């Protein structure tokens, strides 16, 4: 029995080796650079990073944008997952293609498409003016709002698919049982449907949040240099400032956030599953 398990776990060796060389090793080197100074090991770079108001502003903006992106994606994805669960045959195919196809389009193409949508004489502004909601074009491109909307769009499939997977497993008789026990639709949602689909929400939110805090191309294209995010700051440190210590420090901060998100969400998912 044990030898069987051992042999099966050997199958993981190529994957682990690949991860060690391509992922873990460079990351370790990077981390090492953030604490190695000419005077030996020191956390001075970190102290400097956290005491700088500008850096803290970027950190907060990055977290805020990621949180809002996750929230927006969740609000759109949750009902979508239920609609997909209802859809049958060709309609379901349409849904799945609509989810997957945009992923193959590439972020750059999409970002340029949005700039057409968001710019001063773009579709949204023309419509707003035509309805009479605004007199002058509203500034949308280069704002955080546009960034959140765009990012939520890109990451939507990563939110929808985990939720859809859970919704599909949901026993339809559970809400019915709740109804026959006197539960209003509202009570049913908050005491049956939502708790049972929460593992999908947690998984989708963890995916979306960790991708949103580290996104680089989308903010570069939508908001540009004016409003930096952590990833842009990292790129700038390495590429323009040639400050490897700063770059690797910020990378470590970003990595720490990502690890916290992953650990916390898998702890939460396990807890939710243990209850079921």
């Amino acid at each position, binding site marked *: 029995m044990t030898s069987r398990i051992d042999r099966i776990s050997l199958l993981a060796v190529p994957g682990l080796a690949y991860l060690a060389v391509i992922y873990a090793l460079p990351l370790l080197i990077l981390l090492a650079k953030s604490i190695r100074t000419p005077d030996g090991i020191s956390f001075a770079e970190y102290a400097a990073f956290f005491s700088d108001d500008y850096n803290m502003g970027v950190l907060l903006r990055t977290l805020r944008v990621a949180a809002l992106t996750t929230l927006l994606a969740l609000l759109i994805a949750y009902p979508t997952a239920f609609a997909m669960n209802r859809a049958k045959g060709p309609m379901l195919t349409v849904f799945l293609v609509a989810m997957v196809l945009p992923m193959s389009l590439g972020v750059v193409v999409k970002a340029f498409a949005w700039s057409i949508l968001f710019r001063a004489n773009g579709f949204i502004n023309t419509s707003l003016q035509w309805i009479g909601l605004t007199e002058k074009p509203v500034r949308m491109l280069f704002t955080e709002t546009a960034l959140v909307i765009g990012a939520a769009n890109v990451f939507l499939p990563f939110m929808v698919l985990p939720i859809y997977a859970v919704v599909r497993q949901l026993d339809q008789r559970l809400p*019915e*049982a*709740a109804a*026959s*026990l006197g*539960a209003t639709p509202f009570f049913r949602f908050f*005491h049956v449907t939502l*708790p049972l689909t929460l593992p999908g929400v947690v998984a989708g939110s963890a995916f979306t949040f960790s991708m949103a805090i580290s996104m680089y191309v989308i903010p570069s294209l939508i908001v540009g240099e004016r409003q930096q995010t952590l990833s842009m700051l990292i790129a700038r440190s390495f590429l323009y400032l040639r400050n490897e210590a700063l770059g690797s420090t910020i990378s470590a901060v970003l990595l720490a956030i990502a690890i916290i998100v992953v650990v916390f969400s898998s702890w939460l998912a396990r807890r939710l599953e243990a209850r*079921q």
Partner: protein
Amino acid sequence: MTAEKAPAGRHYLDVWGVAKSFKGTRVMSDMNFRVERGELVSLLGPSGCGKSTLLRIIAGLLDADEGSVVLDGRDITRQPAHKRNISVVFQNYALFPHLTVAENVAFGLRARGMAKGATGAPVADALALVRMTEFADRPIAALSGGQQQRVAVARALVVGPDLLLLDEPFSALDRKLRETMQVELKSLLLDRGITAIFVTHDQEEAMGVSDRIAVMNAGRIEQFADPSTLYSRPASPFVMDFVGLSTRLEAVSKGRDGDLTVFDTAYGKVRAQENIPAGTRALVGVRPELVKPGEGENRIATTLADVMVLGSKTVLHGGAGEVDRILCELPGIRSGMARGDKVELGWAVGDTLVYGMAS
């Protein structure tokens, strides 16, 4: 709709003129079904005959296309399920997997707005009723099938429903446990005077548990009667076949002979009281325990195809053909008969069931 009205108040539950289609396919039309207060009623029928559909319409989980449902004088046809005060025990119990046993039982009380602190006593009572007190804090996944069934019953009863609906509540249990649970549940419901409707496709279960049985076939009720009437006087060949096995023979009426009608069958002449015109095709039947070797006014001769010694009874199988079947059940273990023996079997004229066939 015309201004017809259901006769309110006459029956406790009055399902009246109900019709239902799924995507243009009629599965139920002009269904009429009435249950009195405190009755235990079974819906018995083959798979797909519409038992669950009727139950779901009564519970409000499905909308009827036509007709109405009246409960205790209230027209509940357009009321959503959560306002009807009708509890349902589902086939696989549909317990909430994210809640403990006690939380499952408390669900209906909480949904009705009872404070969390107040649910303790009624939940404890309900769990004691189904003897699940010591499992209160267990998660659902840690329970056996029979235990889950008890929790489902406790959850349904704790809210004090006006009507309890059970959709094949025992089908996931093994035979022994099923029989125990049937007895337990029946006495529980009788003690508390609860009106209940069971769905089942097991005729023994229906006969053991209920005051009256509605035998359903293809979206219609073929007969609605107490178990003994249903068994001794089935209203149609379908009911005769579905409720218990019986001897059944294709027959042709030869007309009256005094007070009786004489029928020709492949195994001999059979007499019965029903007046069936000469030349009409018919089906004659008799319950197997009423058939005796060498006794009775009606006699048929057959070769035994099988002799099954079952312990409490011995069953003789005879007859052959698509329709014809001869069954004789004798109490206890009988030896001295074997496959291939030629026997004469008989029964009383008064026990003969006759169904004229329009053709």
